[in-house]
């Protein structure tokens, strides 16, 4: 991706591809999953070629998502480690929510909200995968009891609803904070964007002479 001079790399090409594979899987899982969750949404199964195809393909997409999200964890876990800045930022989140970021404690590459999304999904994706295996009737019904499947399907649904809510927050935040979507499409931000939202990250990049996404060691 050609990056205009003077801008900073927010996400590498590999991270962006990884992200969009995950995102594509998530949206397909959301549509197919909801079609099997609520009768009023069963029509969504038409997008996948009918109920049988929806039931068939949903767990395979889930498997791809698990692998893809594992890649996300590998790429992003370091910058998502929780630290004292996050507590301070969370205390001032009411100011962030009304777009008054001046005076809010400075944060590094990710703020506490982004980290919460990252770690929520890091928890929910494996939970969804493991419970999904238990209810993947075609291949695994011989290894589970009916009671285990009842528990698994309930946890699967709860985790899915939680993941969808986290996803809505994630998508909305990307729309709300201008310039965020470009960080995942073209991958770069202006220094002003970094100054406004991730000032510590900008300072670290500047001091180490890095163009991003991580400061030079």
């Amino acid at each position, binding site marked *: 991706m050609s990056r205009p001079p003077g801008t900073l790399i927010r996400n590498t090409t590999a991270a962006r591809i990884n992200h969009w594979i995950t995102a594509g899987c998530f949206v397909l899982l959301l549509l197919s999953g909801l*079609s*099997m*969750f*609520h*009768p*009023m949404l*069963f029509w969504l*199964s038409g997008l996948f070629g*009918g*109920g*049988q195809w*929806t*039931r*068939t393909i949903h767990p395979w997409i889930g498997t791809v998502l698990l692998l893809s999200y594992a890649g996300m964890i590998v790429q992003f876990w370091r910058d998502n480690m929780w630290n004292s800045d996050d507590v301070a930022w969370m205390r001032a989140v009411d100011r962030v*929510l*009304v*777009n008054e*970021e001046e005076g809010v404690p400075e944060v590094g590459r990710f703020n506490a909200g982004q980290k919460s999304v990252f770690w929520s999904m890091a928890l929910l994706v494996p939970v969804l995968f493991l419970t999904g295996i238990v*209810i993947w*009737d*075609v291949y695994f*019904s011989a290894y589970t009891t*009916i*009671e285990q*499947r*009842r*528990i698994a*399907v*309930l946890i699967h*649904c*709860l985790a899915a*609803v939680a993941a*969808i*809510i986290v996803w*809505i*927050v994630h998508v*909305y935040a990307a*729309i*709300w*904070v*201008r*310039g965020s979507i470009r960080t995942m499409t073209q991958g770069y931000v*202006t*220094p*002003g*964007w*970094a*100054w*406004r939202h991730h000032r510590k990250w*900008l*300072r670290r990049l*500047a*001091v180490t*002479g890095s163009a991003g996404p991580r400061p030079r060691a």
Partner: protein
Amino acid sequence: MSDLQSQDYVRMSASTLTPPSTRDHEQEVAKLIDVSRCIGCKACQAACMEWNNLRDEVGHFEGSYDNPSDLDPSIWTLMRFSEWENEQGNLEWLIRKDGCMHCEDPGCLKACPAPGAIVQYANGIVDFISENCIGCGYCIAGCPFDIPRVSPVDHKSYKCTLCSDRVGVGLEPACVKACPTGAIMFGTKTDMTAWAGERIVDLKSRGFADAGLYDPPGVGGTHVMYVLHHADRPSLYAGLPDKPRISPLVDAWKGMLKPLALAGIAFTALAGFFHWVVVGPNEVRPEDEARAQRELQGVKERK
């Protein structure tokens, strides 16, 4: 049966609307299985295979009279043999014809996510409409009796239909017709309950003090009922559930969770939308760019 006009559905899976149910002036039916009169001949199994054109692959001897060893997509009814040593030290051979109980409140139907894949007719029969089945196996999780089986070949779930095709034209189920001892009876639920009452009086007079009818209220009663000599302990009969009910897990999953989940998702989306309307986008201002440039310049100069 879905190729025939059916306007007598009282329940339909995964439907939020009232199913076509105008032809409901129908008496509820029941099959009564009198375990005390069963001789374990398996004529019912053979009749079921015969009428429904089902042939399972020949399996293996598993050390029991149960043959085949379990229900499967092409075994809709099965004699289960239990040897029980009673309090007097005598051996009792308890033989129970297993199969779908046709619950008044069917757990399979409650769990099913595919509209119209499981229906209940006004006569009480619970039927799987196979072309609507998506093969997810949720009916298995919903069933308190471990009855439905999903075929690995066509990925559809199967179970006893109570010969809905025969009953629909005024015939009795095939197993009933074949039973040589009259252990399987069929008629209206009222008549079958009354007949069971007579049988229970008879059994009690012959020393079975705990004889009784198995029509479990936990699932709203069933359209397949048993006369048991030991009705106080149904589980003696190859694990027949003592107090069957739809699992509270299934109730939570198919009850409260559905509206709460959609409400939670809708609330989050609306919260986002109204945040946008009230606060609007968070945009980088020219002064942010200017101060960023000063910062970058400052770092360069210090170097």
